[in-house]
């Protein structure tokens, strides 16, 4: 999902477009959540462990 920036100003939320006032509150939707990132990190760690183990097995095989 493509992320989108929203702005809260004068008590109302709308899609942020162009220059926004300094006291506006900005936030994005559609960005990765902590669960998405945790899952990506776990998959990457598992792949790294597999690669290290296979390389060490290959490197120490006689």
């Amino acid at each position, binding site marked *: 999902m493509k992320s989108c920036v929203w702005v809260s100003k*004068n008590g109302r*939320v709308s899609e942020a477009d162009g*220059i926004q006032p300094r006291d506006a509150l*900005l936030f994005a939707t559609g960005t990765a959540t*902590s669960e998405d*990132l945790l899952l990506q990190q*776990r998959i990457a760690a598992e792949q790294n462990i597999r690669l290290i*183990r296979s*390389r060490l097995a290959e490197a120490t095989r006689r």
Partner: protein
Amino acid sequence: MGKTKVFISSVNEDGLKPLRRTAFRELESLGHEPLMWEENLGPWPSYLNPVEKCLEAVGESDLYVLFIGTKAGTYDPVSGITVTHSELISALDKGIAALVWADAQVKARFFATVAHRLDAYIDRSVEETGQYPDNGRLLDYLRTCEEADAHVDPYVWLLLYDLRQRGIYVEDLASAVPIDWKSYFSDLLRRGLLLLPLEPSIMDNSLRLEQAGQSFDLMTALLPQVRLEPPGSWADWLGTVSQRLQGRQVKHAYGSWSRETVGHYEACNGASLYRHEGGELRFVACCGQTSAVRAFALDDQSSYIALTYGMGSRAEGVYYKEARQKFFYCVRSGPYVATFHFPAGPSWSNLRYMRYKDSVNNAIIGPNTQMIRLVSLFLGGMRQ
């Protein structure tokens, strides 16, 4: 006993042919197994894609050797890279060690001027369009760049630029100076010997990492099954979490390899907790440099706390306010919304946040994913 397979890569240009032949013979005489297109790779039957076969051979090698002259070789406009570049990317992607040489004059010109011109052009493009220019645009620019010698194919500069971005050292290639292969292999042997005895420690660490992951999984499975008493001091509880939330750089990725630091945020300097009660979000506690507001209406669209609450029972989000020069990370769990305050570095503005929102989000949440999960589970498990 296994031999070291060395993939020799370069454009098959006239100037590099003697070097390639010599390298092949010398590597062979040293007892290694060199792989090179014109010697022992291909030709393959017409129904096989020679580029794919070459990439397969790269993947099966132990060392990737690249010579860069003045020619770029075959450019694929669909992928936007040359065949030689795709071999390099494939080798690095598979974690294969690379040794790279480039024509000494081309390399000197690149580092003296062309690299800086490319840096400036890319910065301007990012500033104007918000996007990293693709290789087609970079090549167009290089064709007009006075410092990029006309006798050097423009893509050669891009290849050198990519190597610099990846932090790969490029050796000088001078026609009168032969490559001292024995020294390079002695150095590789020395580096390998430093690591090989560490095998038990590395294996042990990988096992501990797996066990830590399993313990975390067990904890996240058990916590939702219990009810917890609220802590004696919510302010201390918030402080315990927030003091572990460090400041970091915000890096923006352009594709898989290029990354740029676009700003930073400082360590968490305050936190607050609100709870849904009596039709509003009531203040529970705060710590650090925050001020307490007694309550927010559920439909208060100016409050990041009310906005996060309204997004659902497990919502979370990063907010930015230029007037306070802060990022606010809010996480909702059941009736609670916890907010952690991070001072934004001086480079941030509304426009910059809008441009790099995903990178800000990932920089604040990414290093703290396990902690956030635990905070969410603890809050969700509190007895009402």
